[in-house]
């Protein structure tokens, strides 16, 4: 069965059949085959035709971390390859970090101008400001009170849709 993996902004499909140290299948629609061995728990050797490559990996639920060619990637297995998924509306200001909500300068119904600081967040001693992407009115704000924790990608402020 084909699996889809999201890595940052890109998505990849992998369909693999394994049998006694060999694999064959398709990656992103292109046929692949080669050899596979586990050197130790969490370390594979993969030869897909360009020479043997060591791949460190860890899996936790839908998330898989891999390291090879001197670089690490975090992949997330997604149910199906969804094409043309709509981007989150830019009127939703999500927290870019997991950290502390230091200040919330607006409440629902407030008018704001483009560039206004709406909220101040802090993580690892770095301050991050959420600014209004355009002139508008606040539809809703997070229920978290200043001083509380917000998670990465959690909604902090939403503007009324135009």
């Amino acid at each position, binding site marked *: 069965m084909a699996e889809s*993996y999201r890595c940052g902004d890109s998505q990849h499909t992998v369909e693999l059949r394994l049998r006694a140290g060999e694999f064959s299948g398709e990656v992103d629609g292109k046929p692949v085959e080669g*050899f596979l061995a586990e050197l*130790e728990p969490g370390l594979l050797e993969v030869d897909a035709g360009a020479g043997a490559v060591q791949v460190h990996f860890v899996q936790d639920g839908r998330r898989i971390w891999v390291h090879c060619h001197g670089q690490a990637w975090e992949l997330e297995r997604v149910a199906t390859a969804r094409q043309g998924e709509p981007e989150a509306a830019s009127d939703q200001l999500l927290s870019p970090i997991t950290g502390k909500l230091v200040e919330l300068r607006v409440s629902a119904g407030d008018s704001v101008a483009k560039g206004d600081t709406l909220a101040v967040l802090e993580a690892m001693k770095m301050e991050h400001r959420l600014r209004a992407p355009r002139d508008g009115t606040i539809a809703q704000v997070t229920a978290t009170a200043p001083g509380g924790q917000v998670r990465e990608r959690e909604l902090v402020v939403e503007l009324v849709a135009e």
Partner: protein
Amino acid sequence: MRRVLVANRGEIACRIIRGCRELDLATVAVYSEPDSGSPHVRLADDAVDLGPATSAESYLNVKKLIAVARSTRADAIHPGYGFLSENGDFAAAVEEAGLVFIGPTAKTIRQMGDKSAAKALMQVAGVPVIPGHAGIVEEGFAEIAAETGYPLLVKAAAGGGGKGMRVVENEDALEAAVEAARHEAEAAFGDGRLMLEQYINRPRHIEVQILADNVGHTVHLGERECSVQRRHQKIIEEAPSPALTPELRERMGAAAVAAAQAVDYRNAGTVEFLFQEGEFWFLEMNTRLQVEHGVTELAYGVDLVKWQLRIAAGERLTLQQADITPRGHAIECRVYAEDPARNFLPSPGRIRRLREPAGPGIRVDSGIAEGQQIGSDYDPLLAKLLAHDASRDDALDRMTQALRDYVILGPTTNIAHLRAILQHAAFRAGELDTHFIETHFADWAPAAPPLEALIAAGATRSGGGRQPAQMPSRDPWSPWSSQGGWRQGV
């Protein structure tokens, strides 16, 4: 001096504990609640819980630290860097409690901690300083800014590490920059006083390491080139600097020694300069051990932490300036839990797999262990990777390979970004300034996962999340070990 309390965490606490052990000094570690399982806690002879994650209640809690030193019968405190290391009140409280503060006197820390007063002192001592308004600016920013001229720098008087600093291109941006700098300075240092000075547009950041004993014998151990920075914070440092001639090295070294002597400096310290086209200006003095002290240790064959301990114990500094010469080239890369593709946002998470590089000329100053949770309470520095070799080119090649071998799975790290910098033609050529990252790496993005990474992911899936199905193991003791069917030496 027999028992040292290390009032810090992470890699620097580990580094200091190792230095103590080599001198047969007992060690006491302290930790906040989220750090209870950290390597520095296990490395020390004794470890004491300071309480909650919030720095003010743990690593910045002067009363508690001194009480812990007393209860554990420590007779000296090493502050490391950050936290209380440049807090004159802390140094004074340590001395008043009858303990040894491993660093300069409280008076020296205060003199150098006030950037405005320090600048004035340096001017008197004949050390070149950045042109600008003398003293603290409290009001009338617009008028003083107009006199200083744009672009200018708004800078926290209590500042350091790039916090409370804003470049202002024109008058329209002044008010917002002053507000932001003051807010950040108040949050970081509890002191919102600001200075205005001329903005040097494309400087290198070059700093000079000094050591001084209690009777005023002061030497410098050459410079460190620290121009590669993001958000005013260094990420790559090397010694010697590719920009300095022996003549310039001697002049900057002499200026650093003069700066130290002007404040009766004792112990290890660093005088930071901006450098542009053969000219240099005093930036600030860091009255503590630097994050990047390791490159000086490798290039000069000197153990700065052990010297700190010996000087604090009252020993004389036996190094003579004429004997201090660099051997080869050393470079350091700071490994952070942050995402260079997303404006270097911190990236907390659990360290799920950790494999550190090793080999000739490689040093890893690490504060992490596999399984450890990297939180969002403190600076995201995970470890420092250092490489030393005969020439700059050799050291860079050695570092590039070591970065390839550094496996950290879990939090996003800057390792791939560091390697891209090491391989950049301008970096290889030593053409550096403090805008290097924004000039050459503004749009950097990591490569997409290669075929082998996707195949590995697919294989783990096929195995139902445990041992990949039908996958032979080369571990003869593995319960999954199959009876052949795989090729030797693929």
